[in-house]
């Protein structure tokens, strides 16, 4: 009679022991990662975390731990859907462990408590994080705290279709000198519109195809504002420079008026735009360094360097030649088990190693994040990444990390579109933008 209960307790004890020892020995961790704006060339945003997981598992094994990490990857091709999904998931406490998003999200997301500072989990003084470009790490910070680790860098150049530039009178030597001439402020926005017009007048491109900018809202348009002397933020306060914004709006209104840009350009199908710039239907256009990968891999532009030349965004009146870097950053979301977040942070750290990050840089034609990445042969052997890094990155600005920047951006874009399409005059658009900024942001924005 007494044997049975003893046996029972022994069995239970054995079971508990077995299960608890199993917990000690084997640890299964599930890490989910979401990435926005991710097309077929950007798979390493997610895959790098998987590569890192393998590395971390091996490191754990050497320490005698049986760590199993399952990485669940979710790419989003568009930005708006991704940001909506992420913010709502985070509010519902179902956010992924790691998010790859634009650095401008750090301000609102950290204020709302959706993300946690990565510097709480990693040693920024140790390699590879200590090697990341100082300015990129600054862009990934808010309120003096490092929230994210840059996942890539880029910049947004101006592209010119070489054969047409030659046809309107540029020699090979002139074209080789063009990037420098743009950088020195000798070739300006005014020259750009003139050249675009010449291309159309000569019948090289159809009307409206001389200058063929981005077809949707995006960070690119802040470059034009900078180009015309605008400042986005100063001393932690947003800045709306009326004169610079007027010149920016006027530039696009003039482009439409002179017929080099289509009035209906915004909102046109993206696929059509890609095909047209890849086949020489457009004369001059702006885009990101990552456009190289799409043009060459998906759109069939084989001889890129023979057909296209790229420069900084030329200076406009009152401003300087510039480009904008819009690094995506790895962010850790709040509300997870502390240990999982720590592992997620370790994965981000390992994924930032130069050779792993170079896979993304080369495949997607983004730029490297660290100094030693440019010494990785695989990276430096790639002509595009090498030339783009040298020519553009030193001149790159970034958008401010400010929780009210999104509101400013909306108002700026809405009125730019309205003045572009002629729905409002430039002056009316500036007036509307000013009054809406005043009523919406009050003293959080300096209007001058």
């Amino acid at each position, binding site marked *: 009679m007494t044997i049975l209960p003893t046996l029972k307790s022994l069995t239970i004890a054995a079971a508990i022991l077995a299960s608890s020892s199993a917990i000690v020995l084997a640890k299964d961790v599930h890490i989910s990662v979401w990435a926005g704006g991710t097309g077929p060339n950007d798979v390493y945003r997610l895959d790098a975390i998987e590569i890192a997981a393998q590395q971390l598992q091996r490191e754990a094994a050497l320490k005698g731990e049986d760590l199993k990490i399952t990485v669940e990857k979710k790419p989003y091709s568009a930005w*708006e859907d991704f*940001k*909506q999904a*992420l*913010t709502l998931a985070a*509010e519902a406490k179902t956010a992924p462990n790691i998010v790859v998003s*634009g650095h*401008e*999200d750090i*301000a*609102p*997301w950290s*204020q*709302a*408590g*959706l993300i946690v500072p990565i510097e*709480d*989990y*990693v*040693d*920024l*003084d*140790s390699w590879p994080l200590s090697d990341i470009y100082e300015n990129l790490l600054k862009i990934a910070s808010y*309120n*003096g705290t490092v929230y994210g680790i840059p996942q890539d860098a880029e910049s947004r150049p101006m592209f010119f279709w070489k054969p047409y530039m030659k046809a309107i009178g540029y020699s090979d030597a002139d074209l080789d000198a063009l990037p420098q001439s743009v950088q020195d402020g000798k070739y300006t926005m005014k020259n750009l519109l003139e050249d675009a017009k010449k291309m159309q007048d000569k019948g090289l491109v*159809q009307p*409206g195809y001389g200058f063929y900018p981005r077809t949707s*809202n*995006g960070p690119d348009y802040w470059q034009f504002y900078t180009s015309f002397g605008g400042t986005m933020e100063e*001393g*932690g*306060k947003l800045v709306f420079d009326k004169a610079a914004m007027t010149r920016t709006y006027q530039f696009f209104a003039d482009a439409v008026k002179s017929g080099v840009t*289509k*009035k*209906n350009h*915004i*909102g*046109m199908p993206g696929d*059509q735009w890609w095909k047209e710039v890849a086949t020489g239907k457009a004369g001059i256009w702006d885009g990101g360094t990552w456009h190289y990968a799409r043009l060459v891999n998906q759109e069939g532009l084989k001889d890129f360097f023979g057909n296209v030349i790229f420069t900084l965004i030329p200076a406009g009146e009152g401003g300087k030649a510039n480009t904008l870097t819009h690094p995506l950053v790895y962010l850790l979301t709040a509300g997870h088990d502390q240990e999982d977040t*720590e592992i997620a942070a370790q994965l981000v750290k390992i994924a930032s190693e130069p050779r792993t990050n170079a896979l993304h840089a080369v495949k997607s034609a983004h730029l490297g994040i660290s100094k030693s990445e440019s010494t990785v042969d695989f990276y430096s052997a790639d002509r595009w990444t090498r030339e783009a890094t040298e020519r553009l990155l030193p001149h790159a600005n970034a958008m401010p990390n400010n*929780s009210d*920047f*999104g*509101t400013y*951006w*909306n108002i700026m*874009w*809405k009125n730019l*579109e*309205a*003045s*572009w*399409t*002629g*729905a*409002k005059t430039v002056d009316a658009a500036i007036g*509307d933008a000013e*009054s*809406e900024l005043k*009523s919406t942001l009050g003293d959080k924005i300096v209007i001058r």
Partner: protein
Amino acid sequence: MKSSRTLGLVMIAPASVMIVLFFLMPVVLTAVFSMTNMTTATGISGGVYQIAPNSLIALKSALPEIATEMAEPRYTIDEAGLKAVEGLGLAPGIAAELRAKHAGEVFPARRDVERMIKDLAERPSTREVKQISEQFNRSVLNTRFDSKEQLFSALDDLGFKLTPEQKETVAKITYTGWTWTTDNFSRMASSPDMARVLFNTVLYVALVLTLFNVGYALLLAIWTHYMPPTPASIFRGIWLLPRITPVVIYVLLWKWLAWDSGFISILMGKFGYPPKNYLLDTAYNAWFFVVLINGFIGASMGMLVFSSAMKAIPKSQFYASEVDGASRWQQIRYIILPQMRWPILFVTCYQTLSLLASFNEILLATNGGPGNATEVWALAAYHTALRNYAGNLEYGLGAAMALVLVVIGVMLSLVYLRVFNYGTLVAKPLIED
């Protein structure tokens, strides 16, 4: 009698729950949200108190001296911190070395103190370094406090001498969550863009309603009325296609028709016109297509209602009129239209409410463009509250915009109920008394 009443209440209970959950609650929540400044940055569930460099900018103009003092991040190796480190259960040498070599030192930033900790003989792991540095944090900078009380006690602990009013000012400025406000409504009232969006909405509803949902639907019903039954059914079936085709595919077809490389461009190319995006070429074009796209979908419902209403007109009236030598037009004018008054009124009411709230076809076709020319109220509310390139979703303002639609919808419904004389329709039949 009593038990049947109870039974009735029980029977209706599930429906009441559904009504409250899915009809009443969304409206109540929209009304609640509309009175807040809720955005992505403020979060939905509420905020915390955080003295961050960002909020210090605002604090500097209100309490300059205190703000400057608060801006100082300080990491002090003091006895309280050392005791706390001893309590962490780490290697004992760590606390001892800290006490011996670094007691009394003050570090301006976390990275500085952490570099010192990493240099200790028993080099702690990254996790331990973070734990240790936190014990010496003697600043309120960037710490998130869940409640005002926690913030105030932290300020007291650090020796800030603040009056209750000053404390409240600090709390107000450093609060990261949403607050109650009526600003959304004043923003709507003062914004020229909102006036434009309102005008667009009225234009959209009026055009689609008169030209298609009622006008063209009536025309279709009359045409099919005079057709032999089989072709009439086929014709009506074809007109139902836009309604039953998935909206994404349906709009994509329109886009293929109107894109630069689409059917119209190819056709016009034969006559020497360069290809262009007819859909977004001008505001007029965009409106033309928006009205057609929505109209072709909306016309079918009116057509069905009107057709069945016409079927209910006694055939004898048509025969008699033909004997009298009436023309088709006279039949329409004197027999059909007078008897279609109520169906027309019903379709007008119903479709006004549908059109006011509908935006998905416009979203897919023009996304409100070009230059916000086709941005209607419901689409603008959606863009504001749920779609934003910069990820800064303005839930409060979006809800306020949605609330305006709800109010307009309810008001119109009341007007329509009056027009339909709803009281008479639901009056008790005299026979029951």
